[in-house]
């Protein structure tokens, strides 16, 4: 923490994060007042209908929003540093599509797999992580040959659409039951995450985020380019492997339960660099965790369309917020290099 303005920003975002989390609990199609919330959490209103809504529905959803937001933001930051490309991110480079492919293979290949494996939360996460790892390694391989921003994005989109096509093929050849399972997942939102899933998702993401906090110094060295980083005593292959694994664990796990969420991973690091006015990972990385969590909570609040009966897909809300930020990045690219 270099100066007081950064500390103020951290405190401000922590408050925002807390505020959005609380609002996420309070707001929704069923109106619940603050006093009722207090009753529920003090244990006075146990086993009522409202208690069920809060405890089994809104609380896991709000926690999922925090975790997924942080996970996507940090994996986006990793990718931007790794590729030295300001427009990299899990969604844009097809990592999320890779995770979808993994889950699709699992759910629709269920004819060949034991049922226990298919409905298992761990299996779903594993499939998503392997899928995203596959795409990331492919994109990384190509990126060593094409070294400009735009080509890399096109390559990412291509891999993304290949993964998407494979998913379509799978859909048309799979049986009705497994198709239903997959369609349910692909429309999935933060609300589809139950406590059972959260028990798997939360430990993975939290451990990865904690491990991330040990990396800023080496990530900073990577900003100088690989040869300079080597000169500073950083083992490039070592840090790359760690970053790739963490990146896939974070993006894959987040996607495994919520479905693809666009642009959060790419946009949050830019918001953070713009606000904190630095590229130093010692500040940017923890800030990404807080800002990512806040922003996805906000998206979730908007997607619930409080005081109405309809619900928007979270993916659309995050695109509406994220895409303009990306456009702004492209226009103002000068100062926002990784």
């Amino acid at each position: 923490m270099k100066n007081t303005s950064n500390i103020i920003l951290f405190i401000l975002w922590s408050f925002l994060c807390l505020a959005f989390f609380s609002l996420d609990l309070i707001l929704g199609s069923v109106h619940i007042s603050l006093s009722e919330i207090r009753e529920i959490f003090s244990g006075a209103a146990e086993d009522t209908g409202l208690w069920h809504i809060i405890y089994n529905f809104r609380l896991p959803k709000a926690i999922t929003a925090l975790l997924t937001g942080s996970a996507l933001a940090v994996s986006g930051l990793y990718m931007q540093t790794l590729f030295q490309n300001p427009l990299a991110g899990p969604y844009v480079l097809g990592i999320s599509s890779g995770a979808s492919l993994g889950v699709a293979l699992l759910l629709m290949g269920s004819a060949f797999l034991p049922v226990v494996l298919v409905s298992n939360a761990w299996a779903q996460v594993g499939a998503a992580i392997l899928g995203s790892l596959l795409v990331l390694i492919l994109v990384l391989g190509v990126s060593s040959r094409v070294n400009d921003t735009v080509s890399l994005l096109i390559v990412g989109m291509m891999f993304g659409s290949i993964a998407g096509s494979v998913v379509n093929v799978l859909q048309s050849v799979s049986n009705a039951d497994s198709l239903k399972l997959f369609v349910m997942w692909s429309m999935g939102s933060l609300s589809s995450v139950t406590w059972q899933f959260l028990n798997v998702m939360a430990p993975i993401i939290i451990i990865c985020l904690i491990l991330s906090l040990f990396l800023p110094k080496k990530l900073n060295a990577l900003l100088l380019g690989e040869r300079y980083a080597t000169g500073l005593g950083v083992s490039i292959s070592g840090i790359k492997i760690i970053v790739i694994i963490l990146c896939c664990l974070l993006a894959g796990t987040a996607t495994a339960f919520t479905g693809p969420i666009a642009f959060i991973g790419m946009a949050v690091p830019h918001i953070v660099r713009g606000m904190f006015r630095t590229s130093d990972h010692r500040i940017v990385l923890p800030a990404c965790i807080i800002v990512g969590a806040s922003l996805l909570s906000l998206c979730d609040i908007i997607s619930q369309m409080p005081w109405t009966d309809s619900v928007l897909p979270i993916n659309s809300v995050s695109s509406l917020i994220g895409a303009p930020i990306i456009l702004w990045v492209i226009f103002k690219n000068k100062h926002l290099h990784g």
Partner: protein
Amino acid sequence: MEAEVILNTRKLDIGYDKTYIAKNLALSLYAGEMVCLIGPNGSGKSTLIRTLVGLQDPLGGKIEIKNKKLNKISLSDKSKLISWVLTDNMPTSSLRVCEIVEMGRFPYTNWFGKLSKKDKSIIDNAIEAVHLTHKKDYRYSSLSDGEKQRTMIAKALAQDTPIIFLDEPTSHLDLPNTIDIMQLLQSLAKKTKKAILLSTHELELTLQVADKIWMMTSGKLKTGLPEDLILNGDLQKTFGTERFRFDESTGGFRMNYPVYKEVSIHGDKSIYYYWTERALQRNGYKIVENSPLRINISGDGKWNLYLNTHHHEFYTIENLLFTMNEWESKFLSE
């Protein structure tokens, strides 16, 4: 007093795959000296530097730094012995100058990169040494090429290693910036007792500032003081061609112009004489003892041109040459 040997190589062979670029090199770098590595394009300067810093494996022989074999030194120990500045691969970064220089302390700080008071003063000194104190909070991408290069040199200084390698640090720079960097490196070598090796194409400048020269040419490497390499003719052999030659008396290059006209010059050997001679040579004149075309140079900036009975006085070389051409076609061309 013998200076300390920091790096030496024995029977070193360098190259790619199985293509040897140079063989059997025995080199030594001493503390406090600035060595310039020169040689024509493609002679293997970058390969040598990459091999010496360990970014590329040698094809044979060994490299020792402070009496330890280079390939036995761990990456983190090496980062306290060698630092480098590269031309290629310049990061297009939004980092600030002070943040980049701070990274030089990377090998000495804890996992979070916390800087001690000593680290901070080393960083400030490094930035001051390259005259960038007024720009320490500027973004790297907003700097000029010379300032970018100086930032990376400051990073290398902050790394506080006994050896600094620089691969063509002046190749994108204009002449004033080039001179600035060269002088800076030379004084740093003296002041900080570091061994500094840089590759460069700035031959004339190199001869003035280098403590020692490593000259690569067709698989061989000659080392020595700049003056010795001039006197024994090695420089002329390496860099001279049909079109230009190395002038041993001035330490610069002279073009070999085609000669088809003759003129004789009279006058004292002043700067007027020198520059008139240069202009005449460029225009294809050979200076001879007795030519019907004569120029008389007086030291006060006047030129008198004589041909048979014709005579004219000039105040610039441009007018002199113009009339010489005229007379040439009028009176001498048959």
